[in-house]
């Protein structure tokens, strides 16, 4: 089993992130406020796909999400580039809400034995799936921070 400390931190962060998502309507999830590049749904989809990439993808395990979602949410992409076949907000939210259980189950089942080390720049490397989960925690925090800023721009408040 993975680092208990990082699993606990991941779940605590998820709980807090979820509290900033659960009260939003589909319209609030999909609106790009003036002055912003993305909407809240993009941040959620980006975290969803990036987490699976950092854990499953890096360990050569099948990613449990539709492959066509990858390009829609990759770094630098934006909802303004999406066509009519983009997933709905509820599809993304359902996949996101199910993700922590999937990750914990796959960690428990020891699915990530073939984790391929990843270079982060600055002399830093992720050498194990535990270290990758640490990165997931930081990265979720970053996009959670973006979501809080987007909520303020939408006038949703804290």
């Amino acid at each position, binding site marked *: 089993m993975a680092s208990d*400390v990082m699993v606990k931190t991941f779940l*605590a962060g998820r709980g807090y992130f979820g509290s900033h998502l659960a009260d939003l309507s589909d319209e609030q999830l999909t609106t790009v406020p003036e002055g912003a590049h993305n909407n809240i749904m993009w941040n959620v989809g980006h975290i969803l796909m990036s987490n699976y990439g950092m854990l499953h993808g890096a360990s050569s395990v099948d990613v449990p999400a539709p492959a066509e979602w990858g390009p829609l949410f990759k770094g630098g992409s934006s909802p303004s580039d999406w066509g009519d076949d983009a997933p709905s907000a509820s599809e993304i939210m359902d996949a996101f809400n199910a993700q922590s259980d999937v990750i914990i189950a796959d960690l428990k089942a020891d699915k990530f034995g073939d984790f391929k080390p990843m270079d982060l720049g600055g002399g830093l490397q992720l050498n194990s799936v535990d270290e990758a989960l*640490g990165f997931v925690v930081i990265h979720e925090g970053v996009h959670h921070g973006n979501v809080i800023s987007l909520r303020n721009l939408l006038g949703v408040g804290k």
Partner: protein
Amino acid sequence: MAKTLPLAFKTFRITRFHLMREVDGLSHEQLLTIPEGREDNILWNIGHLLCSISRLTYVFSGYDLPIPERYFGLFGKNTNALDWESNPDPDEVLTYFTELPDKIEKDFAAGDFTEYKTLQIVPEDDIQNVEEAIAFHCFHEGLHIGKILTLKEAMGLPVKGG
């Protein structure tokens, strides 16, 4: 023998690498600018994280604060940069900020932080030891990297990204 550092310490180093590459090279003016519609600036986010990690490590392990007490009136919970009567010295804040992780690692390796006062963070969770505190702080630091990125975007500054 010195203790080896648990995973959370490496995650903390990775967090700082990502934060500092957004902050290094910014002028005092850029660190202190409060864009329209915001109540924080980049320096507030840095000072806030400095207060938080000082409390989570030293104070909750029963040690003295490793930073000036007055920082809590400037950067603590429920403060904002709009209320500052005069600007804090960015160099002083950044020096404490960049030196503290090394001090924490050194003190941990020397066996400090063994007594930890449990801290309730959200209704359903708590922090039981310093490793959990640092892991939680990495998440918290990520959140403020997100806020720094949106501040930089609002100021038209280039970002490295999350």
